[in-house]
C-alpha cells in the first residue's frame, strides 16, 4: 500500500513537471504574419498551353506532338530584398499538366525579389530506396515510372511524344503520331539543375498568393534539331541530353 501511495505521488508530481515543461516562456514574441503561397507551373510551347492532342513546332519549324511532360521540382526558396533566402515547406513536387501546383505553405509577409528551385532530386535522395514512400509521395514509384530501377535513380525530366524527321517536314500524322518517337528522359546527378528567377517580385501580403510560372518546352528544345536529336535516356546520346539539361534553367519564367 505504501508503494502504491508512492506511485500515485510520483505520477502526480511527474505530470505536474511535464505540463510545466510544455508552457512557453513568458517573454513576448513579435507576431510574424504569414500567408499561404503556391507555385503554379503552366507548361507551354511558346505561349500555347501544352496539351496532348495538338501539333507543335520548334523555333526552326520542326513539328512534334507530346504525350508526356513531367518533371521534379525541389529545394524551393524565395529570395528576400536583402538577398537572404526564405526556405519554404514542402520538398519534392512532381509537376505534370494534371498536377501543376506546388503548395509552399505559410510564408512571412514581405516582398521577395527572386525565386530559386531545382529541377531534379538531390544526389542523396536520388539514390536512396524509392520503395519506402507512401503512394501519395511524389518520390514513390510512379505510374508511368519516373525512376530507373536498373540503376536506382530518378528521371528528373520526362518528355515523350513524336516528331516529324522527314526532309519535307510535311509528314502526315498517323493516329496522332509523327514518324519518329520523341523520348527525352533526363536524370543522373550531373544533369541536376538549379533555376534562378531573379526578377520575380513576389509580394506576400493579406491574400493567398499564387505565383504563375511558365515552363516552355520550346526553350528546353533550344538549339536541338529534332531531325537528328529525338531520343535520349541521359546515359545514351549524352550530347543531346546535355543540351536539354543546360536549357532547363532558362525554360522557366514568371508570368504576370
Amino acid at each position, binding site marked *: 500500500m505504501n*508503494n502504491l501511495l*508512492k*506511485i500515485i505521488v*510520483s*505520477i502526480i*508530481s*511527474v505530470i505536474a*513537471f511535464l505540463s510545466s515543461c510544455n508552457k512557453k516562456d513568458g517573454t513576448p514574441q513579435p507576431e510574424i504574419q504569414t500567408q499561404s503561397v503556391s507555385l503554379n507551373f503552366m507548361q507551354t510551347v511558346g505561349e500555347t498551353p501544352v496539351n496532348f492532342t495538338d501539333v507543335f513546332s520548334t523555333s526552326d519549324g520542326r513539328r512534334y506532338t507530346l504525350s508526356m511532360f513531367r518533371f521534379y521540382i525541389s529545394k524551393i526558396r524565395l529570395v528576400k530584398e536583402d538577398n537572404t533566402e526564405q526556405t519554404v515547406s514542402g520538398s519534392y513536387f512532381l509537376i505534370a499538366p494534371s498536377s501543376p501546383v506546388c503548395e509552399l505553405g505559410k510564408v512571412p509577409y514581405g516582398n521577395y525579389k527572386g525565386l530559386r528551385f531545382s529541377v531534379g532530386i538531390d544526389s542523396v535522395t536520388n*539514390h536512396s*530506396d*524509392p*520503395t*519506402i514512400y507512401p*503512394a501519395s509521395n511524389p518520390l*514513390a*514509384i*510512379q*505510374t*508511368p*515510372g519516373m*525512376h*530507373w*530501377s*536498373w*540503376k*536506382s535513380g530518378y528521371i528528373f525530366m520526362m518528355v515523350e511524344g513524336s516528331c516529324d524527321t522527314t526532309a519535307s517536314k510535311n509528314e502526315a500524322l498517323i493516329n496522332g503520331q509523327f514518324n519518329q518517337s520523341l523520348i527525352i528522359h533526363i536524370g*543522373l546527378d*550531373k544533369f541536376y539543375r538549379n533555376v534562378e528567377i531573379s526578377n520575380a517580385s513576389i509580394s506576400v501580403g493579406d491574400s493567398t498568393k499564387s505565383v504563375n510560372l511558365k515552363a516552355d518546352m520550346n526553350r528546353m528544345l533550344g538549339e536541338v534539331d529534332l531531325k537528328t536529336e529525338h531520343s535520349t535516356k541521359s*546515359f545514351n546520346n*549524352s550530347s543531346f541530353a546535355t543540351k536539354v539539361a543546360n536549357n532547363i534553367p532558362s525554360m522557366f519564367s514568371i508570368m504576370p
Partner: protein
Amino acid sequence: MRYYKNSKAQHILLGFASHLQGIGVVVALCFFLLACLRKDDVVKDIDKLGKGNEVIQLSLPLGFPYPIIPNDNLPTQNRIRLGRMLFFDPILSRDSTVSCESCHHENNVFSDTLRVSIGIEGRKGTRNTPSLVNIAYQPVFFWDGGVPSLEQQVLAPFDAHAEFDFDINKVALLLNNHPAYPALFQKAYNRLPDVYSITRAIACFERTLYGGTSKYDSYVYKGDSSALTISEIRGMKIFFGENGECFHCHQGFNFTDYSFRNNGLYSVYPDSGRAMITLSASDLGKFKVPSLRNIEKTAPYMHDGSFPTLEKVVQHYVEGGRRHRNKDRLIQPLALSKVEQQDLINFLKSLSDQ
C-alpha cells in the same frame, strides 16, 4: 498475455519506485509509460498477425557467415512463404506469363541454361541470368552493380521491356483484388500489397537460398579428405596457385570478391557494363566477378552467355583474353597443359551442391 505483461510492468515500476527518489521517479515513470505503450502495441500486433511472425534464424551452410539483413525485413515464416508464392506467380508480368522462377529455376540453382534471359512474348534480354543461390551475400546487384539492395533489385524486372514489362503499382492493385494475397500480406508485413511489401517479401524469400554442400565444402569445412579426387585436388592447387591465378578474383567462401573487372572478353564491348552506371570510360567492359559455386549448372557463361562450356571459359583464360585498355592486369596467358586444364574444370565441377 495481456495480464502477464501488465503485472510485469507494475513489477518494474514497484522496483524502481521503492528505491528512487526525486528525479529518479521521473525515469521510473517514463519506463512505466513506455512499458504500457509497448505492451499495447505488442498485444495488438500479435492478435492481428497470428503465428509465423517470430523472426527466425536462417540455416546456413557450414562455414558461411550470417548475412547482413535490413532491419525492416528480418525473416519470418509468413514473409518467406509470401515471398516464395510471389516468386512463382506470373501475375507479376504484364500478360501473366512470366514469373521470377521463369528465369531463376528452382530445380537449377535458381538460374536457367539460356544464353540470355527471356521475358514476356519471348523477348530476349541482353544478359545471362545469374543464380540466386547465396544471393544474400551480394553487396550490389546486376552484372553492372547498378542497384544497391536486394529489395530495390526486385523493382527492375517489372520495368524491363524484356522481362515483366509491367508496372509494380498495377501489380499491387491486382494483388489487392486477389482472394488470398491481401490477408497474407497483412500477416507478413501488417500492411496491404504495395511497392514496399512486394519488394520486401520477394527479397526475404531470396535471402533463404543457400548452397554450401559441395564436395569442396566437405573437403574444406568438414575435413573429409576423401571428398575430392586427385584430379580435383590438382585443379584446386592450380585455382589457388600461381599457375591459375583464379583466386585473386574468385576468392572467399563464395568464390568472388564482388569487384567489377574487364576480363578481356572483347576488344569492343556491345554492352558497356559497369560504365553504364558510372559513365566512366575506365569502367567500359567491366562486369561483376560472379560466384563460381554451382558453376557447372549455370552454363552458358560470361555476362552475355557467350561461352557455352567450362572448357571454353578455361581456354579463354589460358589464351589471356583480347586486348582492351581496361583489361585487368591479372588476365595474362596461362601455361596450363591440357591435363591441367581438365583438372581445373574438374575442380570447378566439385563446387556443385550435392
